């Protein structure tokens, strides 16, 4: 193992969280999804050393962790920007102009969906239904939903991230 993996350690807060999760399930593996979320919060994205660390914490074979991490879209396997912008392009948002909105954001940020801006600030994603269709088009920025987004309101939202 490289020196890098030695540096990977949960903060005390994350350790406490994980310990709490482990009390909630009869198996250690059931804490895997929460543990990966914690790891992503701590380390930004899930590198192999990070996943190996999680595997160690849960006493799981690393491959079990890789399998789960690659199955779910919310786990970032590549580095992402400081902020993540998720544009829903599913049916209702599509009916309300989400494709054009995505194109607009893509042009404005100078990146394709899935890419990060050169300054490492923002990663743009096109995602499936966010369960907010009455307020389409929906854009999620980090943990927050934004309703009925227009190019103007999108400009303001991006402004706040700068």
């Amino acid at each position, binding site marked *: 193992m490289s020196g890098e993996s030695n540096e990977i350690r949960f903060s005390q807060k994350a350790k406490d969280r994980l310990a709490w999760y482990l009390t*909630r*399930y*009869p*198996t250690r*593996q*059931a*804490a*895997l*999804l*929460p543990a*990966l*979320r914690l790891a992503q919060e701590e380390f930004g994205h899930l590198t192999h050393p990070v996943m190996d660390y999680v595997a160690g914490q*849960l006493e*799981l074979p690393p491959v*079990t962790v890789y*399998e*789960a991490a690659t*199955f*779910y*879209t*919310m*786990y970032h396997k590549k580095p992402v920007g400081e902020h993540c912008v*998720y544009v829903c*392009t*599913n*049916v*209702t948002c*599509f*009916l*309300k*102009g989400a*494709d*054009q*909105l995505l194109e*607009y954001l893509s042009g404005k940020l100078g990146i394709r969906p899935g890419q990060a801006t050169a300054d490492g600030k923002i990663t743009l994603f096109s995602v*499936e*239904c*966010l*369960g*907010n*269709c*009455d*307020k*389409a*088009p929906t854009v*999620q920025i980090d*943990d*927050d*939903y934004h309703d009925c*987004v*227009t*190019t103007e309101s*999108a400009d303001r939202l991006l402004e706040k991230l700068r």
Partner: protein
Amino acid sequence: MPELILTKDLDVPDYHRLAGYRSRGGYGALKKALDEMTPATVGAEVKKASLRGRGGAGFPAGTKWGFIPAQTEKPKYLCVNADEGEPGTFKDKVIMERAPHMLIEGIILSCWAVGIHHAYIYIRGEFVKARKILQAAVDECYAEGILGPKVMGKEFCLDVTVHAGAGAYICGEETGLIESLEGKPGKPRIKPPFPALVGLFGCSTVVNNVETLAFVPHIIERGADWFLKIGSERNPGTRLFGVSGCVVKPGVFELPMGTTLREIIYTHAGGLPEGRTLKGVIPGGVSAPILTPDEIDTKADFDSLAAKKSMAGSGGLIVIDDSVCMVRLLARIARFFAHESCGQCTPCREGTDWAFKVVSRIERGEGQPGDVDKLASIATSFAGITICVLADAAAGPILSFVQKYREEFDLHVTEKRCPLENKAPSRPGP
């Protein structure tokens, strides 16, 4: 105005907090059950009420609970399906954000009825706000002795754990959900065995939708006979209809089951924007086959929509007006299913992808003669033969779109362009 059950008190200040919920009689049903009823009579009342699952399939909750063996060596579990991933669906979020204690009260009653001591609420990962509100409500319950070793002082212990998903539509399927909760990829299991016998951690498990469980306190408080009087035959109660798309007033509307699609769209959701006409409605999330304007006098309940070869599904209506290209819309839907197929069944994995490719080339004006029939035959070929019904859910829209809007598909192939190209959309792009 029809009677509201779930949404009646949503405007009460702090209804999402214990105090607010209690100020409207919250946890009264639980108290009544624990003081005056037995677990068996709670189960019987829910069974009598014919409470049909609001997650998609409409299976009666009381009957499902009845499949759980009364005596088992192992623990039993409840999985609350809060994955809400079906496109066009946004109603469970309303309950979780604004009436989390109603859900928790429903969970406690259900667990007591079935003899369960741990419930997991599987909430989709993107719902961070709802998760925080729900967790705060669960914490309040532990602090007040409503959850924990002695539920409201009685000899009944119950734990509730809020568990976040991580982005995968298939985890809404009940066995995909169970796999995911166990820390694995959410790949559905072959049934049988059904979760009632071999579910979470190999134990007997009930999986119910958020909205389904939120009805339970009301049924216990007011009785099955009251509930049976609301709604339509064999489809009692109200339901949270989510209306989105080309309507003036999209939103969640609580209405009796059996309200017609017409009434939901025109009376409650404000109808279509000025100058637009209805082209179709998807009545229960994108998995539901589309209905044409001459079919909207159908009652939006499980049996009536099934009779129309569609489904009530999640209660999410997506309204489509005359500015929308049906080929483009279907291409978008096909992309969704191709993306969300978990990949373990070859017909689903390959078929959804192939269908998406064919409909996309038709949409781009690159369709070959015979492509429209090919699209339909691909959908027919992968439906009904896979581990879970995602493949059927993918086939339904394809077959119904092609059948009902055939001309539009053919025109894309023969004229190599969209006949609607010059029609301005009802809401121009942003």
